[in-house]
C-alpha cells in the first residue's frame, strides 16, 4: 500500500489541532523535518508542525514561497474551495458543522423528519 498524499509545495492540508483548527491551508515551504510554512487566503503565513496537519488529496501548482497574490490566483485556478466542498471528507465536515449549530427547535424538526422517513419506508 504505497503512500498517496505527500508533503510537497502546494499540498492542501487541514489543520487538526490548535488555534486554526479546521482551517484549510496550503504548504508553501518546508522549514525542517518537523515543520512547514503554511498559508491560506485569510491568514498570516506561519509555520506549523506536520503533526498538526492532515493532508488532503488536493494539490495546487505553485513555486516555493509564492507571494500572497500568486497563491490566491493559483488557488482560484485549481478551484480548491469547490473541490474540497464536493469531496466526501469536505461534505462530512459541512454536515458536522451544521448539526452542531442546530438549535433546540431545529433538532425537534429533524426528529420529526426522521420519524416521517421511517414511517413512510415502513408503510410503503
Amino acid at each position, binding site marked *: 500500500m504505497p503512500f498517496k498524499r505527500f508533503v510537497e509545495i502546494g499540498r492542501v492540508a487541514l489543520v487538526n489541532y490548535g488555534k486554526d483548527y479546521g482551517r484549510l491551508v496550503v504548504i508553501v515551504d518546508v522549514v525542517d523535518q518537523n515543520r512547514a510554512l503554511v498559508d491560506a487566503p485569510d491568514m498570516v503565513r506561519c509555520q506549523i508542525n506536520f503533526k498538526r496537519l492532515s493532508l488532503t488529496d488536493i494539490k495546487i501548482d505553485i513555486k516555493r514561497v509564492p507571494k500572497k497574490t500568486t497563491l490566491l490566483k493559483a488557488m482560484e485556478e485549481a478551484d480548491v474551495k469547490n473541490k474540497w466542498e464536493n469531496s466526501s471528507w469536505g461534505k462530512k465536515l459541512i454536515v458536522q458543522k451544521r448539526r*452542531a449549530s442546530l*438549535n*433546540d427547535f431545529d433538532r425537534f424538526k429533524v426528529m420529526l423528519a426522521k420519524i416521517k422517513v421511517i414511517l413512510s419506508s415502513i408503510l410503503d
Partner: protein
Amino acid sequence: MAPPSKLSLGIKRASRSHTYHRRGLWAIKAKHGGAFPKAEKPAAAAEPKFYPADDVKPRAPSTRKANPTKLRSSITPGTVLILLAGRFMGKRVVFLKQLKSGLLLITGPFKINGVPIRRVNQAYAIATSTKVDISCVKVDKFDDKYFARDKKTKAKKTEGELFETDKEGTKNLPDFKKDDQKSLDAELIKAIEAVPDLKTYLGARFSLRDGDKPHEMTF
C-alpha cells in the same frame, strides 16, 4: 507689639479688677438687672433602670438596596424557555415578561402543554433561540400581587377537633383566573400556529438522549 498678657506662668499682667472692667462684665451685669445671666442647666436625664453589661454600640440599619434582578440577554418577550425543575420540568413554554420581583411570567400556552400563567425563576429556565411574536398579547394586568396566596383564616379548634386532620377545602381556581388564561392564550396560539411544527414543539417535553452533550448543544 502689645505688652504680654502674662509675666510668668500663672502671673497675669492685669489684675482681676482691671480685667473685670476691661471685659465689660459690669455692662453685662447692668444689662441684666444687676446679676449675671445664668445659662439654663439641661434637665437631668432620668436614671435608666437598666445598664447593659457591655458597652456595645447599636448597629446602624443597613442602607443597602437590592438591585433589580438582571434579565439574561438571551431572554426577550416571546422567547421559548425550557423549564428545568418543578412540576413542569422539561416543558417548553413561552416567556411573556419579567415581573418586579425578578421572576419571569410564562404561559404554556395552557391548551398546548398544560402550563398555566405562572411565575418562574430565571435560574431554572434555559432560553432557546426560538422566539414567538407576542406583540398582540396583553400582559399588563399580571403582576406579583396576582399570584399572591390567599390568607387562610384559622378557626379555633375545640379539644376534640385538635387531633383531627385538617379538612382542607378543595382548592378551586377562581373563574376570573381561568378567563384570564383563555384570553391570554387565544392571541398567543394564533401566533404559534402561524409557524409550522411550533405547536407540536411546545407540546413536547425536552429530555437529554444518549450522546447529547448539553455543554456543546446550542439552544
